[in-house]
C-alpha cells in the first residue's frame, strides 16, 4: 500500500501545507497581526537546528558510540545559558544596524568591509555545502528505503546509480524549486520572512512529533519500556556493547564537539537568520533560553533506546542511520513509517529552506551585488529599481547552493555517516567565532586582522577536513592522505606536523582555530584601527559611537528632516530647518545641500530632544543610509526618556536630601544653643537664689549668736530678712511665670481691654511707691479709649513692671516719669519715659535677656541686682504674645524710653 505515488503525494501535500502556513503568516504580518510575535513560536523556529542529522543521524551516531550524539545538543544548551547577554547583544546590534546575515555582521563590525563580507560568504557557502548534501542524502535514502516496503533494502551506492535515476537529484530539484518559490516571492527590505518562520516552527512540531511517535512505538510498542530495552540489549550480542559498556570515545573529542556545537548554534547562517534576523522582539529570547534546550532534550530522549532496539533487530545489513525508518517498517507500521518519512522531510526542508535563503541573501548582498555595482559597463548604479534583479540573483544562488550540495553528495556522500558530514560544516562555521566573538568584546580587532584570521582558518579547514573528504571517496589521489601534499609527510592533512591521536574534527579544530585566532590577533595588532573601524568597534563593543571623529558621510534634507520630525514633530522640525536655511542665506529648506554641516545641524537638533549619544546613533543611521525601523527608534527614545526620568528623580532626591541636611544642621545648632542657654539659666537662677538666701542666713545667724542685741537692731535685721524672703518669693514666682510663658503653658484670658483704663489703674497702684521715692509721675493720656485684645492682668503686669523699673532708675532728686499713650488706626502705642542715666546702645537689647540689669549710675550691665532681672524678659514675652513689640529708646545721660505697641482691636471705634 505504500506505493510510490502515496509517498510522493504525501510529500507534496505536506509541502502544500507549509506553503499555506507561510502564505497565511505573511498575510497576517502585512495586516500587522504577526503570527510569530510569540516566544513559543520563536523557540520552535530555533528548532531548525535539528535537521535530518538529528532525525536520522543521531540514532546512527548512538549505535556507533553510545552517548556520543549528545555533545551536539549540549553545546547549544550551554550557548543559550549565555544568550542573556551574548545573543541579546548581537540582536541589538543587528537590529540597530539593519544587519541581515552573519556576513553582514562581520563586515559591518570591521568597518563595513565588502571584502570581508565576501570572504565570510564564500566560507559559509563552501562550509555549508556538506551539510546540504547531508539533507539530500537522508531524504533520498529514506525515500528509496520506503519505496521498497515491505522489504528492507539499503540504497545502492550512489556512484553506481546513473545521474537521472538518482533520487537525490530529484530531491535536490524539488527542494530547490520549493525554496525558490517559498523564499523569493517578494523582496523584503528587512530580510525578514514571517511566513517562513511560521512554517519552520510548524516543521519543528512535525519532526518532534514524528520522532517521539517512533520512540514511543519502539520503547512501549515493541518492548516493555525503557528499562526493558536496556535489559534486553544487555543480553543481546549486537547491542550489549552500548547497553552496558563505558563510553568508547575520548573526552578530548567530546569537548571539541560541545565547543563546535556551541558556536554552530550561533554562527550557522540559518541559526543566525532565525535567532537574530527573524527575531521579532528580544523579550522572546527570555522563554526561548530554556524552551529551545528543552526541545533539544525532547527530540533526543528516545535516541539511545531506538539505537539499541535497532541494533537488536538488525544485527547486520541495515545502516544505523535508517533505524528510525526501518524499525516501524520491520513491524509493518505503514502509517508510522510514512509519518517518519514526513518527519525527516520536514527536518530536511526546514534546514534547506532557511539555510539557502540565508546563503542566497549573503551571496546576493555581499558577493554579487558589490561586483555588479562596480562593473560600470552594466550601469547598475544608475538604475532606480533593482529589486527584480536582486530576486533573480537570489533564485540563482539558491539553485547554485543546492547543485553544489548535490555534487558534494555524489562525490563524497558515501564515505561518511550523516553526523560526520554535518561536523565538517560545523568546523567551517566555527571559523567565524574569533572574528564575531572577538569583535563583540575587543575593540582592537581590525579588518585586516579579521581577513587574515578567517582566511587562515578557512585554508586549514579546507586542507585538513574538506579535501580529505574528497580523498576518502577516491576523488583525490590516495597519496594525498598518506604522504601529504607534494609527498611532504609533515603535511599529511589529518596528521598535520605529525600530530596524531586526535580524531579528524578535533585535529582540524585545533589547527584551524590556532591559525585563525593567531592571525586575527597578530595581524590586528599590526596597526591601530582606523577611524571607521574604531567607530564600528565602539558601537559593537560598547554599544555607542559617541566621542569619535566627526561625520564623513552625507545625508540630504529628505533623510534628515523626517528623522528629526519623528522626534520633534513635523512643524517644529520644518521650522528649525527653515531657520537654518535662512541663516545660511538660502531660499528654503529644499535648497539646503546635503553636506556635513547639515548633518551636524540635525544631530544637534536631535541631541536636544534625545541626548547626544542617541542623536549620533540616529543620525548615523541615515548618514550610513540605513533607515531605522520604528521599533528601534521607539527603543532608543524609550531608553533616553527613561534615563532622563531617572536622572530627574535623582536630582530631586539629592535636592531633598540637601535640604533635609541643612534643616537638620540648623535644628542641631538650635538644640545646642538651647542646651547652652538652659545651663546658663540654671546657673544664673541658682546664683540669683543664693544671694537673698545668703543674706537671710547671715542676719538669722547674727540674731542667733547675739541674743543680747537691742530691739531696734533686731527689728532692722528681721526687716531685712522679711525683705529678702519677699524678694526670694518674687524671684521664684517670676521664674515660674517665665517658665510657663516660654513653654506656652501660661493661661490667658483674652478680652477687649481699654489700655488707658489699665494705665490709670497701674499708676494708681504705684502712687504710694512714687510718693515714697519722691518721683513725679506725669500722665499724657488721650481722651478716647484705646481697645486691644489682651489679658488684662498680664497687661497690668507689664505696665507695673515698666513703671517700677522707671522709678528705680529715676534720680533721687528731681526724678520724673512720663507715661504716654496714643495710637494709629492699626496699633496702640504706650511709652514710659524716665530721666535716669540712660542705657548705652550696646546694652539696649541685652536688658531684655534674663537676669541682666543695668545699675542706676554707670549705665553698664551688672550682675548686682536691684530687682530680679526677669521683669523685662517677662514683659517682652507677654507683649509679643499679643502680637506687639517692646523696645527701649535711650541715649546715655538722656533718660530711657520704654515703648510697647499692641495691635488695635479691629472695629472698636465702630462699637463705640
Amino acid at each position, binding site marked *: 500500500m505504500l506505493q510510490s505515488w502515496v509517498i510522493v503525494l504525501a510529500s507534496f501535500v505536506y509541502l502544500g501545507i507549509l506553503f499555506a502556513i507561510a502564505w497565511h503568516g505573511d498575510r497576517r504580518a502585512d495586516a500587522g497581526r504577526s503570527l510569530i510575535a510569540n516566544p513559543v513560536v520563536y523557540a520552535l523556529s530555533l528548532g531548525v537546528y535539528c535537521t535530518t542529522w538529528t532525525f536520522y543521524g543521531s540514532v546512527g551516531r548512538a549505535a556507533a558510540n*553510545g*552517548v556520543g550524539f*549528545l*555533545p551536539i545538543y*549540549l553545546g547549544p*544548551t*550551554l550557548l*543559550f*545559558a*549565555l*544568550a*542573556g*547577554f551574548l545573543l*541579546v547583544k548581537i540582536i541589538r546590534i543587528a537590529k540597530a544596524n539593519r544587519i541581515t546575515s552573519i556576513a553582514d555582521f562581520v563586515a559591518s563590525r570591521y568597518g563595513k568591509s565588502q571584502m570581508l563580507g565576501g570572504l565570510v560568504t564564500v566560507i559559509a557557502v563552501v562550509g555549508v555545502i556538506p551539510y546540504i548534501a547531508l539533507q539530500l542524502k537522508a531524504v533520498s535514502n529514506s525515500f528509496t528505503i520506503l519505496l521498497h516496503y515491505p522489504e528492507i533494502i539499503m540504497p545502492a551506492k550512489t556512484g553506481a546509480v546513473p545521474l537521472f535515476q538518482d533520487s537525490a537529484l530529484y530531491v535536490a530539484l524539488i527542494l530547490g524549486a520549493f525554496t525558490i518559490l517559498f523564499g523569493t516571492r517578494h523582496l523584503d527590505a528587512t530580510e525578514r520572512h514571517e511566513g517562513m518562520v511560521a512554517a519552520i516552527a510548524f516543521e519543528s512540531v512535525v519532526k518532534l512529533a514524528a520522532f517521539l511517535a517512533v520512540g514511543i512505538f519502539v520503547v512501549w510498542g515493541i518492548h516493555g519500556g*525503557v*528499562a526493558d530495552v*536496556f*535489559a534486553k540489549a544487555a543480553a543481546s550480542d549486537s547491542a550489549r556493547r*552500548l*547497553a*552496558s*559498556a*563505558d*563510553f568508547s570515545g575520548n*573526552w*578530548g573529542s*567530546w*569537548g571539541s564537539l*560541545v565547543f563546535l556545537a556551541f558556536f554552530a548554534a550561533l554562527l550557522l547562517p540559518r541559526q543566525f537568520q532565525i535567532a537574530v534576523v527573524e527575531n521579532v522582539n*528580544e*523579550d522572546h*529570547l*527570555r*522563554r526561548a*533560553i*530554556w524552551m529551545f*534546550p*528543552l526541545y533539544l*532534550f525532547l527530540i533526543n*530522549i528516545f535516541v*539511545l533506546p531506538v539505537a539499541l532496539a535497532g541494533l537488536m533487530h538488525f544485527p547486520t545489513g541495515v545502516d544505523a542511520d535508517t533505524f528510525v525508518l526501518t524499525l516501524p517498517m520491520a513491524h509493518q507500521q505503514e502509517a508510522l513509517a510514512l509519518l517518519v518519512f514526513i518527519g525527516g522531510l520536514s527536518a530536511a526542508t526546514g534546514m534547506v529552506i532557511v539555510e539557502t535563503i540565508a546563503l542566497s541573501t549573503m551571496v546576493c548582498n555581499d558577493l554579487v551585488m558589490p561586483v555588479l555595482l562596480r562593473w560600470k559597463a552594466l550601469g547598475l548604479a544608475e538604475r532606480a529599481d533593482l529589486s527584480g534583479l536582486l530576486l533573480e540573483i537570489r533564485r540563482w544562488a539558491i539553485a547554485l547552493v543546492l547543485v553544489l550540495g548535490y555534487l558534494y553528495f555524489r562525490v563524497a556522500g558515501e564515505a561518511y555517516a550523516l553526523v560526520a558530514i554535518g561536523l565538517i560544516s560545523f568546523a567551517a562555521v566555527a571559523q567565524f567565532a574569533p572574528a564575531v566573538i572577538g569583535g563583540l568584546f575587543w575593540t582592537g580587532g581590525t579588518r585586516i586582522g579579521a581577513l587574515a584570521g578567517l582566511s587562515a582558518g578557512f585554508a586549514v579547514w579546507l586542507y585538513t577536513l574538506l579535501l580529505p573528504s574528497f580523498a576518502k571517496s577516491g576523488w583525490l589521489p590516495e597519496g594525498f592522505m598518506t604522504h601529504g601534499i607534494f609527498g611532504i609527510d609533515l603535511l599529511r592533512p589529518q596528521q598535520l606536523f605529525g600530530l596524531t591521536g586526535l580524531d579528524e574534527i578535533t585535529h582540524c579544530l585545533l589547527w584551524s582555530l590556532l591559525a585563525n585566532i593567531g592571525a586575527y590577533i597578530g595581524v590586528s595588532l599590526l596597526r591601530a584601527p582606523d577611524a571607521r573601524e574604531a567607530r564600528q568597534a565602539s558601537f559593537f563593543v560598547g554599544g555607542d559611537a559617541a566621542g569619535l571623529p566627526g561625520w564623513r558621510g552625507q545625508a540630504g534634507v529628505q533623510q534628515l528632516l523626517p528623522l528629526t520630525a519623528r522626534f520633534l514633530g513635523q512643524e517644529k522640525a520644518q521650522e528649525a530647518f527653515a531657520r537654518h536655511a535662512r541663516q545660511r542665506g538660502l531660499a528654503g529648506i529644499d535648497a539646503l545641500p546635503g553636506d556635513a554641516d547639515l548633518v551636524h545641524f540635525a544631530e544637534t537638533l536631535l541631541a536636544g530632544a534625545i541626548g547626544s549619544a542617541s542623536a549620533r546613533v540616529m543620525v548615523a543611521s541615515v548618514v550610513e543610509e540605513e533607515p531605522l525601523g520604528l521599533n528601534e527608534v521607539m527603543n532608543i527614545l524609550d531608553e533616553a526618556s527613561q534615563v532622563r526620568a531617572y536622572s530627574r528623580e535623582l536630582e530631586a532626591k539629592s535636592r531633598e536630601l540637601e535640604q533635609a541636611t541643612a534643616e537638620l544642621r540648623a535644628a542641631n545648632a538650635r538644640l545646642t544653643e538651647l542646651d547652652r542657654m538652659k545651663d546658663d539659666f540654671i546657673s544664673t537662677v541658682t546664683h540669683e537664689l543664693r544671694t537673698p538666701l545668703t543674706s537671710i542666713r547671715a542676719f538669722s545667724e547674727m540674731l542667733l549668736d547675739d541674743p543680747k542685741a537691742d530691739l531696734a537692731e533686731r527689728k532692722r535685721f528681721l526687716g531685712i530678712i522679711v525683705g529678702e524672703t519677699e524678694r526670694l518669693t518674687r524671684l521664684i514666682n517670676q521664674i515660674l511665670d517665665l517658665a510657663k510663658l516660654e513653654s506656652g503653658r501660661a493661661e490667658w484670658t483674652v478680652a477687649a481691654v481699654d489700655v488707658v483704663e489699665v494705665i490709670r489703674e497701674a499708676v494708681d497702684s504705684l502712687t504710694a511707691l512714687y510718693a515714697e521715692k519722691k518721683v513725679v509721675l506725669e500722665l499724657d493720656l488721650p481722651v478716647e479709649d484705646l481697645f486691644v485684645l489682651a489679658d488684662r492682668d498680664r497687661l497690668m503686669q507689664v505696665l507695673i513692671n515698666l513703671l517700677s523699673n522707671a522709678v528705680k532708675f529715676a534720680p533721687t532728686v528731681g526724678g520724673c516719669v512720663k507715661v504716654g499713650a496714643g495710637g494709629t488706626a492699626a496699633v496702640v502705642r504706650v511709652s514710659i519715659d524716665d530721666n535716669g542715666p540712660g542705657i548705652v546702645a550696646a546694652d539696649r537689647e541685652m536688658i531684655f535677656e534674663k537676669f541682666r540689669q543695668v545699675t542706676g549710675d554707670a549705665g553698664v550691665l551688672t550682675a548686682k541686682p536691684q530687682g530680679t532681672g526677669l521683669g523685662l524678659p517677662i514683659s517682652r514675652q507677654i507683649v509679643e504674645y499679643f502680637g506687639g513689640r517692646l523696645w527701649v529708646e535711650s541715649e546715655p545721660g538722656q533718660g530711657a524710653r520704654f515703648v510697647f505697641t499692641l495691635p488695635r482691636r479691629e472695629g472698636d471705634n465702630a462699637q463705640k
Partner: protein
Amino acid sequence: MMRSRLSVQRLAALFLLGCVLFNYPLLAIFGRGGQLFGMPALYVWLMGSWLVLIALMAWVLERRKD
C-alpha cells in the same frame, strides 16, 4: 529583556555549571560503566543533569519577581 542583571549572572553561573556537568572529568567518573535504574550510568547522568540544567534555566527566567 533581561531586565535583571541578576538573572543574567545566574544564567552565566548555570553555563559554568553546565560546562562542568557535561565534560571531563565528571563524565569520566560515570563513564567507567555501571548501571543506574537499569541504564548505563553515563546516559542517566547526562540526561538527568541536562534536564536539571534546563529546569534551573526555566526557574531563573520564569519565576515571579520577588
